[in-house]
């Protein structure tokens, strides 16, 4: 997957957990909890689903990379490119 494909797929994944559903307001700089209103309790579910969807592993220290859409897409892209 190229980065754009990862971005599209990740936004789709996030939307299933976000109260903000309008794709047009979900940008690379959107914060999952503060901007997209993802329930903070469900944050870990997004990471688990990303692990399954992109065949990657997200360690405890990497979780901060998932706070912002663009950072998460970068992280997933790095891991899939280097896999």
């Amino acid at each position, binding site marked *: 997957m190229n980065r754009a494909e990862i971005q599209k797929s990740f936004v789709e994944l996030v939307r299933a957990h976000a109260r903000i559903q309008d794709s047009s307001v979900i940008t690379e700089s959107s914060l999952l909890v503060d901007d997209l209103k993802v329930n903070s*309790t*469900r*944050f*870990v*579910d997004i990471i*688990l689903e990303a692990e399954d969807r992109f065949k990657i592993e997200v360690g405890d220290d990497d979780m901060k990379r998932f706070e912002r859409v663009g950072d998460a897409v970068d992280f997933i892209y790095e891991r899939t490119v280097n896999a």
Partner: protein
Amino acid sequence: MDRVVITGMGVVAPNAIGLDAFRIALCQGRSGLAFVPQMKELDFGCHVAGIPPLSEESTESYLGPLMRTTNSTMRYAAVAAIDCWRDSGLSMPPSDSAVDWNTAAIIGSSLAGMETAGELVVPETNAGRVRKLGSSAIERVMASCASACVSGILGLGGPTTTNSSACGTGAEAIVNAYWMIREDRIDRVLAGSTEPSSVYAWAGLDSLRVTMRKCNDRPQSAARPLSASAGGLVPSGGAGILMLESLASARSRGARIYAEILGGHSNSGGQRNGGSITAANPEGIVRCVQQSLEVAKVKPSELDYINGHLTGTAGDPKEIRCLSNALDRRLGDMPWINSTKSLIGHGLAASGSMESVATILQLVHGFLHPSLNCEDFHPEISELQPRVPQVSLSAPVRIALKTSFGFGDVNSCVIFRRWDEE
């Protein structure tokens, strides 16, 4: 000390979902028990259970995305609580509403998280996949999963808790809520109980051989309270939720009132005098009934109807003798008595609340539902037979006693009076 009234009810039962459907099912004597293939496949002795016919589609219309993070314990309670809330004339709050500081929730359960423990937590943990459990495993396995779920949906700010006293749980929740309002601690309490439909919840009872094993080919004949051929309980799941409210609060908002709770009491037989973890000390039951009457200021002769605990086990004749002793009324002179478990099985912790809803519906609509499958009445209590309706009866019952007993030798009784405008 204010009076306590019931202003709303909701029910998810094996034979019906919702008040109107439940009233009709009771009146028609419709059984909600069915053959459960999974119980046969897993080599249970009993292959019959009562599973509420709550569809995913219907549940989703109540819970929306919350569906993903709930189990049947929570779903039954949430659907019954939302129905109860609306039935009491209150509108559903949006998810960002102000907190309702004047409403509490006491929603009991006994085996609350067993379904999630059995299907998810135990197998995943044993397979070394703890990190894959996800965010909702803990909220589905904790004892207070249902009260927490309901409180979050409705934005309740009063005490939110889960009581647990085995099969006495539902009636105990109502007794506890009654005292909270009587003592002017809160205006309203959503009170009741819930229990999952899960083989993991029922396995221990099957192993104990207290489940019915002789009617696997005749599911609707399996629950046989008061009969000579009663051979054990039939497990079931479900929930019943009641809105208990101070009379002042109900009147101030013009709420419709179904019934008044005149009194109630909970106790334990201390596992003495024949009592044990699974059997009741007769003195405990007698004292519980008598103290309920005392609180309610009701004479035994004023009771019109008893909704018994009556499980379809060897305990039924013992319960009847205790009730007779407590009321000092001989069997042929007892109030009307029936067993809702003959229709919906034994909902365990959920039984007391589902059966309280059944009790109040009978008071309000002036009928008694049939106690099924006791044509061969138990010979030890044969004098009682004329007091047990075997077909639906029209009966202007006004004051009812609900009894519930549970493992641990615990007892809870509630006395309801039909509301007649004063």
